[in-house]
């Protein structure tokens, strides 16, 4: 069992050096060990900045960020935190460092100073579960955008993090690869890993324990994923989110009493209910 870690933000603010506006304004947030949090919000609302605070890539310009009990401003915090908290970037090119698939995956565990047999084992596992084992000897340049996104995840899984931060990490994947990627995240969550996931797609958040919504660097809503998803299209539209088409259809069919309100918003469940 890989017990996740707890993170807490207390009045955390962040302003980029060249910017007049704060990207995050006095955020209070307690992330429990093993919790899965989905972070939503419009472009420029501070989602990516929040993730960078959580793995000590940035430190708050005011307030406190504690990761597994350690203040991220302490000198040895980045080294300790990077061994436990891994961030998968929006753009995989930002984190791929080597030119060959297996070398890139080995970069993280090598930096942790692990014995070579263990590095080999971890690289193999990470490449198998991300479906890249066959491509282990391939140059990174020959991978497609979606394959690079999986490689970024493999590199991160190889360090067996206790907290996984995902910054729109599925945005370049086709629906089939997205399902695979999401089930990898679910498996990590079941192992006890803390997950903080930034996304624009409402069909990726149904397994989250909690949804937080950011507007202009502040948390303007938080609650359960199902509660969030049950809001009407109009309400979601006002905060710039689009309900998946199948959820729109499900809601209408429930209203017409053609299917039961407990029916999931997927083709198979609706079909089963309609044929009942």
């Amino acid at each position, binding site marked *: 069992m890989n017990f996740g870690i707890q993170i807490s933000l207390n009045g955390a603010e962040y302003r980029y050096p060249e910017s007049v506006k704060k990207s995050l304004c006095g955020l209070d947030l307690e992330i429990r060990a093993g919790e899965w949090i989905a972070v939503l919000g419009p*472009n420029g609302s501070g989602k990516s900045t929040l993730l960078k605070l959580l793995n000590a890539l940035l430190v708050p310009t005011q307030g406190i960020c504690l990761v597994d009990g350690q203040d991220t401003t302490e000198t040895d915090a980045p080294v300790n935190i990077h061994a436990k908290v891994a961030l998968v970037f929006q753009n995989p090119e930002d984190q791929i460092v080597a030119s060959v698939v297996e070398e890139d995956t080995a970069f993280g565990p090598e930096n942790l100073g692990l014995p070579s047999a263990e590095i080999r084992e971890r690289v193999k596992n990470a490449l198998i579960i991300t479906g890249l084992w066959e491509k282990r000897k391939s140059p990174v340049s020959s991978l497609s955008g979606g394959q690079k996104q999986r490689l970024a995840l493999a590199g991160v899984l190889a360090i067996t993090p206790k907290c996984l931060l995902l910054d729109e990490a599925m945005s370049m*994947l086709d*629906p089939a690869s997205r399902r695979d990627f999401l089930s990898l995240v679910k498996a990590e969550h079941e192992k006890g890993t803390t997950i903080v996931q930034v996304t624009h797609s409402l069909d990726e958040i149904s397994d989250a324990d909690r949804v937080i919504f950011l507007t202009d660097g502040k948390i303007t809503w938080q609650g359960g994923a199902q509660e969030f998803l049950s809001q009407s299209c109009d309400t979601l*539209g006002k905060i*710039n989110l689009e309900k998946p*088409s199948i959820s729109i259809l499900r809601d209408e069919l429930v209203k017409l009493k053609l299917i039961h309100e407990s029916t999931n918003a997927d083709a198979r469940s609706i079909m089963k209910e309609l044929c009942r």
Partner: protein
Amino acid sequence: MPIIVNDLSFTYNAGMPTETTALRNVSFTAERGEILSIVGHTGSGKSTLVQHLNGLILPQSGKITVDGLSVRKVPSDLRKIRKSVGLVFQYPEQQIFAETVSDEISFGPINWGYSGRELDKMVFDAMDSIGLDRSLLRSNPFSLSGGQKRRVAIASVLASDPEYLVLDEPTAGLDAAGIRELVSLLNERAAKAKGVIHVTHDLELALRISTKILVLAEGSVAAFGTPSETAEMLCEKYIDGLVLPEVLALSSELMKAGMVSGITWEPTQLLKMITEGRRVAF
């Protein structure tokens, strides 16, 4: 005249142990005034294909012509083709290089010889059309959020007003407002008889907004036609790695069970069909 791709094949690292065939005998035509969406699974060859359209990659075998000009290693022709075909990259960071948003967006038009008020107008028009706030003109594009960076990348290609706008996964990282702005921009371009070629893995979006859809699987053309033709084909034939949008999949199952009269990817349309089907049944 359109972009014509004829029997195009491409292999990466040919003759090496890592040899990968990205495109196999791909043929299609992209007309002006149309929105052509290219969909396919991760690694199906979509990005390789569009990088051929403005000569970033030159054909290894097969032929591409843009308004009658052949894409090949003739500098004067390639310059004309690159003015005519504007490519927005999959990752904005691959494209953005300037220190301010203003320098980034005006780079293309300056290269094509524009200056003064005409240049300013081109920059402002491009920013407005993709919802990029003019107050960001002096900002460093690398300090912007992911969604704003993507808007800068699109505006910088749009500013040169290319005859064909080619976008590689432009909706990744955009919020719903950004996607709506992008879709209306694509429609405006098509209405002005410009060509639009749009790579996406979002089949539902492609069905909703396109005139034609090209489906790639393992580097080959698996389907090419109007959204209705493509939807029908995809409901009949399973393509590895391609998942049908849920509403379309449901309509296809309901039709097989005789509960609706046709297939659709629109939720309101399917709702209408389901209620009509019930009325007939009772």
